[in-house]
């Protein structure tokens, strides 16, 4: 019976032997890459639960018979009625002095400090192993209890370094996701078009080509020039309104482009306008990539970040995303060049499928592997760029605590080694695991490299 089961499982594994499964086993064999994957999952979990493990608001507090969950609660205050006197005491969660509160039960987060909150008793660079004090409600000075200890010391203002590190994980991982999300969207789309169509495959009529170009002008006019004040106001108010305004503009742009696209199909039927022309998609996109890679990107990002009216980390992520798609586009293009000549694509074409469907349904899944590798390396360099920017204090609001800004604080006082070592180590580890992941993915996804 046992053997039979074994046989069946072998049969099964042979039956659904897929490339994905093969790549996964290859990836798992690469120990450094596999462990970095595990570390990354751990970091992601930390990033998600950061507001609950490093916050000065207690997880649970029972005060005058009222149960409160400040760290988890959406509202910011709680009104407590004293049953004896009837007086109402209002506790505001974010500014309440929890550490000196005489509560019946109080459970603090593992790190009982928020990244921005100052601990005046332990200000001015208190070292991790040094003497840390705690002043009780009665004004007595005592050795700090373990639950309030600054495990990685404090900076000049008395902000907890460990809490900053834990909350900085969020920023770093979001940078990776958002900027590389934008970059891979642009990169894969342009790369796929360049590789699939080449210079000689996208054919259209003279009439529809020029109609479309004129349409692009109108679309741009109505979407961006006419709405320029709305967009400017959006940038001045908040990140959300930027996104909404941009979305509306892009929607108008697409709508008008489509109208002119269909119009062009009609125009293309008229006499001399029906002459066939090729659109050199590949040349256009390749030139654009060449131009973008010759730009001094770090200085460009710094200059753009410097003129932004409102300093925000989201702006930085968007700028990084908009400028770092070239690597992904190049690899996707190369892969599409190879795939578009394969027989199964020819077969799909001969069956009369729409080009859109062939690109996205048949070709793209097979072309994603190299892009994935580029994305992993891209995340590493995006994190480096962001931490360099916040290290220099450019474009990042001073209230946002990131690994780079923590490290920057350490520059002022070299005796505070913990401000230099730990944030730097965090950046280093994160960048390293992304690089290792990239290498592992490359080895696993590209069977040609295996020896």
């Amino acid at each position, binding site marked *: 019976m046992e053997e039979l089961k074994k046989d069946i499982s072998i049969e099964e594994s042979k039956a659904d032997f897929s490339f994905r499964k093969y790549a996964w086993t290859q990836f798992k064999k690469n120990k450094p890459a596999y462990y970095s994957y595990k570390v990354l999952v751990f970091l992601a979990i930390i990033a998600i639960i950061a507001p609950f493990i490093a916050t000065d608001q207690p997880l649970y507090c029972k005060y005058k018979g009222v149960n409160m969950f400040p760290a988890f609660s959406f509202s910011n205050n709680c009104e407590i009625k004293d049953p004896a006197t009837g007086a109402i005491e209002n506790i505001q969660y974010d500014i309440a002095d929890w550490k000196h509160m005489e509560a019946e039960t109080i459970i603090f987060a593992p790190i009982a400090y928020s990244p921005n909150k100052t601990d005046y008793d332990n200000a001015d660079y208190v070292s991790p192993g040094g003497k840390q004090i705690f002043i009780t409600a009665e004004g007595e000075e005592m050795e700090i209890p373990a639950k309030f200890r600054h495990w990685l010391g404090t900076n000049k203002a008395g902000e907890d370094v460990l809490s900053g590190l834990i909350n900085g994980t969020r920023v770093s991982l979001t940078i990776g996701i958002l900027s590389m999300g934008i970059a891979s969207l642009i990169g894969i789309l342009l790369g796929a078009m360049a590789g699939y169509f080449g210079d000689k495959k996208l054919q259209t009529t003279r009439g529809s080509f020029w109609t479309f170009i004129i349409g692009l002008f109108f679309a741009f006019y109505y979407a961006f020039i006419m709405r320029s004040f709305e967009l400017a106001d959006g940038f001045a108010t908040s990140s959300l309104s930027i996104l909404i305004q941009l979305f509306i503009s892009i929607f108008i742009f697409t709508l008008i482009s489509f109208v002119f696209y269909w119009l062009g199909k009609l125009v293309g039927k008229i006499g001399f306008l029906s002459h066939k022309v090729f659109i050199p998609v590949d040349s256009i996109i390749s030139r654009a990539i060449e131009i973008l890679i010759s730009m001094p990107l770090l200085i460009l990002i710094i200059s753009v970040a410097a003129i932004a009216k409102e300093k925000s980390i989201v702006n930085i992520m968007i700028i990084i995303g908009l400028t770092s798609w070239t690597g992904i586009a190049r690899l996707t293009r190369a892969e599409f060049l190879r795939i578009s000549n394969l027989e199964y694509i020819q077969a799909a074409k001969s069956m009369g499928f729409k080009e859109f469907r062939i690109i996205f349904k048949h070709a793209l899944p097979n072309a994603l592997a190299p892009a994935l590798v580029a994305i992993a390396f891209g995340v*590493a360099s995006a994190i480096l760029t962001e931490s360099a920017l916040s290290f220099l204090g450019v474009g990042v609001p001073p209230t946002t605590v990131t690994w780079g800004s923590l490290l920057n604080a350490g520059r002022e006082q070299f005796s505070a080694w913990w401000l230099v070592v730990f944030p730097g180590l965090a950046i280093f580890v994160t960048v390293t695991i992304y690089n290792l992941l990239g290498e592992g993915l490359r080895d696993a996804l590209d069977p040609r490299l295996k020896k």
Partner: protein
Amino acid sequence: MQKQCILCGKISRMFRYILKRIFIFIPTLIIITLLGFLISINAPGDPVERMVSSAQSGGEVGTQSVSQMKDKLFWRKKLGLDLPVFYFSVTSYAYPDTLYKIGDKPEREALSRLISNHGNWNAIEQYHNSLIRFCDAQLFFRPDTNQLKGYETNKVIEDLNQIKFEALSLKASYEEVLMQAKIDKIQTILSKYSFLNDSKRLFDQVVSDHQNIKNTESKWKNYIPKIAFYKNNQYHRWLFGDGGEFSKGIIRGDFGTSYVTKQPISEVIYSKIGWSLFFTLLSVILAYFVSIPIGVKAAANRGSRFDKSSSIVLFMLYSMPSFWLATLLLMTFANPDVFHWLPASGVKPATGYPEGAGLFEKIKISFPYIILPAICYTYSSFAFLSRTMRVSMIEIVGQDYIRTAKAKGLPENKVIWKHAFRNSLLPIITVFANIFPAAIGGSVILESIFTIPGMGSEAIFAIQNNNYPMIIAILTITGFLTLVGYLISDILYALVDPRISYK
């Protein structure tokens, strides 16, 4: 004879290839200058305001404006802001072609927003003109003692100032509610004093013109795009100058005036670019010198302990943020508490070089200052280069002709250095294109950590002080240097590899 012809063909083909690279070089440069220009005109704040207010500040509302008017006109002319922005502009049918002539930036924006809201330029122009008449009259208005009889003098002066302030801010406002509020306020103050009847008449004109804007609205005009062309514009002037009156243009190396020191920017950059180029080139050369032997040795003894350990170390160096390493090194070797072996900042002693010091003496004095920056500049490109060298060497070592050379009985050293090494050099030359720009970009961070007086630290200083012309100049120059780096690596590649087809 035949050989010469092949050579001729090769040279002409190579020449064509290089020409083709230059064809890409030029549009890229234009795009970089365009981007720089775009950033500079979108920069917050009015540069004229800044130039004038740093010269003099304070004073009463009225007097300040009068005395500054001339200054403003001068700076507007000097900075070229009295010209349209670009060769063409895409606006709507409602816009006049000459809106750029309005000097004040907030005023211009208010007007263009009014146009985009209402669409009738004639009415808006009328309103604007009568508002200007009112403002001018109000700025020079001084009530004499006769008129002041029966009023509290201080109160009158306060109210008059209030009118000036509201009128000036009315010029820069465009929201209907705000405008109405300001108009109402001015009207109530005007009606308080009998001696302000003249002003009141002027202002009634403003009010009726304002009403007129709303009555003769023609929003449809905004839906018709219009392209206007300008021969003489800011970008053209920025590139080519205005015939030498104020600006020679960046093609002659004139980047304009610094907002902070009011010095010509080219002078500042000229004095700073030396150290930046020195460190960039030093790092590239050092990186090549160190990485080649390491890469070759690791590849030749593939799988050995040296190969494995160097791989790990190089990989870690590659992922190490340069600003972290720099801070760690400073913390260790330039810290009085640990090892105070090296100076922490600058490139020479604070007192400068001793008088009459020769070149060698200067090098000797600067040497300890250069060690730490040089390490930080070099290590990341060195790690990258060694890894590339190793991979390309491994590829070559696996080829048949190397096995033949070994089988022939050639000594290992000779096989590696004479047969394999030369051919494995190709990829490492091409990555020059990656290293050179990286070194230039990295200089922004490292120069500001080590306080090296170069372009990178100047860029950070400029950003902290909103000195936009400087930022744009640095962006353009580094863009140019990056492009030159690419061009050099392309040409080197073409020179070195006989197999390249120049297509």
